[in-house]
C-alpha cells in the first residue's frame, strides 16, 4: 500500500449517522493532515494532528493517530448531506528535509438525506 492510503474507498451512509474513515501509512511522520474535496472543487484543510498527539477534535470531526500502527482515523459525527465529498489523508516524512505531502487516493463519502 502507498503512504497515506485511505480505507474504505467509498462509504455511503444516511444523514445523522457517523462516518469513519481510516488511513494507513508506511514511514515515520511529523504530522498527518486530513482534507476534504467537494466535487470539482479545491482541497479544504480539515485538521492536522502531530505525531506526538493521539486525538484531536474540531467541531463534528474527531481524528485519532496511532503511530505504533501507523494509522489514523477520521470520524464525522451526525453526518449531513453537505458532508458528501472525498476525504484524503496526507503525511509528511519525518526529518526528511522535505515538507512535501504524500496523499492517498481518498475515501468517497456519500451522505444520503
Amino acid at each position: 500500500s502507498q503512504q497515506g492510503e485511505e480505507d474504505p474507498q467509498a462509504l455511503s451512509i444516511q444523514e445523522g449517522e457517523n462516518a469513519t474513515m481510516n488511513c494507513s501509512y508506511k514511514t515515520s511522520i511529523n504530522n498527518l493532515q486530513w482534507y476534504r474535496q467537494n466535487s470539482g472543487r479545491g482541497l479544504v484543510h480539515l485538521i492536522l494532528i502531530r505525531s506526538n498527539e493521539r486525538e484531536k477534535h474540531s467541531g463534528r470531526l474527531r481524528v485519532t493517530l496511532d503511530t505504533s500502527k501507523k494509522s489514523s482515523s477520521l470520524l464525522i459525527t451526525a453526518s449531513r448531506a453537505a458532508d458528501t465529498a472525498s476525504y484524503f489523508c496526507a503525511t509528511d516524512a519525518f526529518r526528511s528535509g522535505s515538507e512535501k505531502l504524500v496523499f492517498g487516493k481518498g475515501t468517497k463519502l456519500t451522505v444520503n438525506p
Partner: protein
Amino acid sequence: EAGVTQFPSHSVIEKGQTVTLRCDPISGHDNLYWYRRVMGKEIKFLLHFVKESKQDESGMPNNRFLAERTGGTYSTLKVQPAELEDSGVYFCASSQDRAFNEQFFGPGTRLTVL
C-alpha cells in the same frame, strides 16, 4: 483573510501549446507548493518554494515544466509544450511554518490538453 487563489480555474489547450498557471499564496506565507492530480491517480507533489528559492523540485515530471516565484510572492507554473498526459488538476498550497507544515490549498486549475 484571503485564501490561496489560482488562475485560471480551467484551461483547455491543444497539444504542443504553452500554458501558464498562476498561484497567489496566503499573504505572509513563505512556503508555496505545487501539486497535481491526473485522472484516477493520487495527488502528487511537484515542487516547493521557500520565498523565491526552490527548496524541493523532486516531483517535477520533466523539463517541459518550469516554475518560478519571482520576488517570493506569487508563483507561475509553465508547461511548454503541453502533452496529452499533462491533463489534470494542478493545485497550489501555501504554509507559514515549515515545522508545523499546515498546508492550505487553492481551488486548483483544471488543465485539459486536447
